[in-house]
């Protein structure tokens, strides 16, 4: 297996708050790594550092062997990193299908076309992709009025459009009903395993984490306190003390 992501000594502080402190992460193709930790542990900040939305104070991020620190998110996306946000971000004034079409237009570098209709471009591809995330029936609904779970699914479709090698999913199932959660996670793992996509995801739902992650990294106040296979992490005493022990109350 080839290494897709290699993060070393990643650090970021906001004023006095040291949100991320020297985090190392490794991801192979086709692997699902869950990044867990209590609220404010620095999970989203890690994502933002990896996809270029924030610049790290220290440390390196290598994607497919290439140092990507300093590149803007749009460049990192072009290299093959797809992402979904904790608070889903879609184009509210467009239909679900048009949202996915935007991803295709961007991937094929057709954004500056002045002639032709955007609504006709990559229509079939967009519909196929929506089909894969079970959104076909909602293709013509405006993204702004979709139910929360559907927006998350739409984000997944958009992130898959350019055939990414790495997917960053920040709480993909937050705000969903348990049934819906399970189906989305199953769907995601099917897709990524088939295509050999590496996935880094955060999740507060421990069922989802322990049943789908190949490996789990635990963050606590910006520091990585454990990293290993689910059973190992479950047994780790530090993790139990700082996180899992209190998790029952949280979820």
């Amino acid at each position, binding site marked *: 297996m080839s290494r897709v992501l290699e993060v070393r000594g990643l650090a970021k502080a906001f004023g006095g708050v040291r949100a991320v402190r020297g985090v190392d992460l490794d991801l192979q193709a086709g692997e699902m790594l869950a990044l867990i930790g209590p609220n404010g542990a620095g999970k989203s900040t890690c994502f933002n550092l990896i996809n270029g939305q924030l610049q790290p104070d220290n440390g390196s991020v290598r994607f497919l062997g290439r140092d990507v620190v300093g590149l803007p998110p749009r460049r990192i*996306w072009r290299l093959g990193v797809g992402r979904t946000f904790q608070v889903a*971000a879609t184009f509210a004034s*467009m239909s679900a299908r048009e949202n996915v079409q935007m991803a295709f237009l961007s991937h094929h570098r057709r954004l500056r076309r002045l002639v032709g209709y955007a609504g006709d471009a990559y229509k079939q591809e967009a519909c196929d992709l929506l089909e894969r995330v079970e959104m076909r029936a909602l293709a013509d609904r405006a993204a702004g009025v979709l139910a929360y779970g559907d927006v998350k699914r739409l984000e997944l479709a958009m992130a898959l459009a350019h055939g990414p090698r790495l997917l960053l999913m920040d709480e993909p199932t937050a705000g969903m009903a348990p049934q819906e959660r399970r189906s989305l996670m199953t769907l995601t793992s099917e897709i990524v395993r088939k295509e050999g996509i590496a996935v880094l995801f955060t999740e507060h739902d421990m069922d989802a984490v322990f049943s789908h992650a190949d490996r789990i990294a635990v963050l606590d106040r910006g520091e990585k306190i454990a990293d290993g296979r689910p059973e190992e992490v479950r047994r780790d005493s530090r993790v139990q003390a700082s996180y899992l022990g209190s998790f029952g109350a949280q979820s």
Partner: protein
Amino acid sequence: MDLLLQQLLTGVASASGLFLVASGLTIIFGVTRIVNFAHGSLYMLGAYLAVSLIDLFGGGHLGFWGGVILAMLAVGLIGALFEITVLRRIYQAPELFQLLATFGLVLVVQDVTLLIWGPQDLLGPRAPGLTGATQIFGLRVPVYDLFLIAFAPLVLLVLWLLFNRTRWGILIRAATQDQQMVTALGVNQKWLFTGVFFLGAALAGLGGAIQLPKGDANLHMDLQLIAAVFVVVVVGGMGSILGAYLAALLISLIRVLLITNAQLTFGGIAAWQMELVSMFLVMALVLIARPWGLLGRREVASDQRSGTPEPRLRPADATLRIAGGLLLVVLLGLPWIVGSYFLSVATEALIFVLFAASLQFLMGVGGIISFGHAAYFGLGAYGVGLAVRHWGMSMEVALLAAPLLAGVGALVFGWFCVRLSGVYLAMLTLAFAQIAWSIAFQWIDLTGGDNGIIGIWPPDWASSVTNFYYLAGAICVIGLLCLRHLAFSPFGYTLRAGRDSPLRADALGIDVRQHRWFAFVLAGVFAGIAGGLFAYLKGSVSPETLSISLSIDALVMVLLGGVQTLTGPIFGGALYSVLKNELISLTNYWRSILGLIIVLLVVLFPQGLAGAAESLRGRLGTSR
């Protein structure tokens, strides 16, 4: 050396008046987030009121200072009254509407001032006891200058004490940071805002009154000053009083140095010709280095957009196609229906529709608010004017110069503008329009200055009213169809993506800034085409085509029709330009009527006419 020192003193003295007005504007913005366009008008009122009051009281010590203080209080009350009757109703509306309301006030104040005080400039009374000049370091300095130099820091100190040592001031500062919290404290936020408006307006009035001994009261001082005040406030940082003072000093010093060294030339351009331009160049440079001004706070751009999402764009349905077809038939038959006067009114309306549509493309599709769209209209007009005057080009060629010059202007201005967002972006667009205006106004050799360029006539084949109507109409309709198509093109969608969620767009490989820049150029090109046609319609070009009021006209047209509707500019542009034409021919006081209409529209329909029509449709329960 002495000369330089003297110039510096003059500069510092003239900064005082500018600072007073700017501090009022910045305080109002800091608390209410309203950019008060009418601040220059309040300044003008302060000057006129003070002249009358001092005249009434006699020119003694008591008379002069009593007059100044009463004028200040009166202007404060006028500001508070405006806040209570108009602004209070529209704090929740989009900021653009608030700006328009304050511009409505500008128009009304202009007419009221004309009505009460007449068109003559009124010479300012001398300040008793502060006349003549005195010797300092061997320099003769006017005593009143020394007073002004000392006065501004004094006001600065008083304001500092007010905001740091009084309960009211501390509440105001709290409100600036967190409005919910103040409401939670049980403070009536409404009256807090009114109080702030009173203070800000009073400062503007004081600024107008205090400059009288060095100047006069005239009807142009409102818009002349407001541009400079915007520059000062933006350079200093919106909301920062000390920043406003520093910026006022900087701007005033540069202007004084350029005026007093008028004979110096830089690369063939005389110093005095750069006086106005310099101000806006300083602003552009400061904003590039510090996008939130010298002492301003960085505005946190949130990706979570407030309010309802923008509506979806749908291709024309059968009804719209039929309506469009009918409209075309009417336009084609118009020369048989109406006389030549109305035909030229219709030509003008078509030109403004294209102009409005180009702004709608920028604002509605691109999400970029421009307060200075007249820049590109005017550059288009001057493109034609210069081509005709300096190269004797024929219309067929000169009309190409219009989009060219406008496009180049948009390319340069847009590069700066797309780097900013929010109020700063809006202010910068305005500043660039003023740069273009200043060049047209002060570079007389090239542009004919205030007189503009005359004698721009179409060739014989297009010179009859009917033929020109067809020519201009055809170009405008084609332009409109192009703009409409752009909204549906991949590029239009990309712009909308950047508008809906810059965060998502960036994470999807879209360079939002670059596309906005491109949108700026396209909008500029179409505005330029409209401007070029306008030059041939009027037979002349003047700085008027670059003016603030034309930029505002464009905004009103777009808002009338609804920012988010592609057909909006057609209604808004046609309605507004015909209405304005009619008003001008009916009454000398058309400005105030127009101003009142704007204020009323904004207060009654805070979501725009299109929004109102939409909700009416919703209430009637029809699905279409």
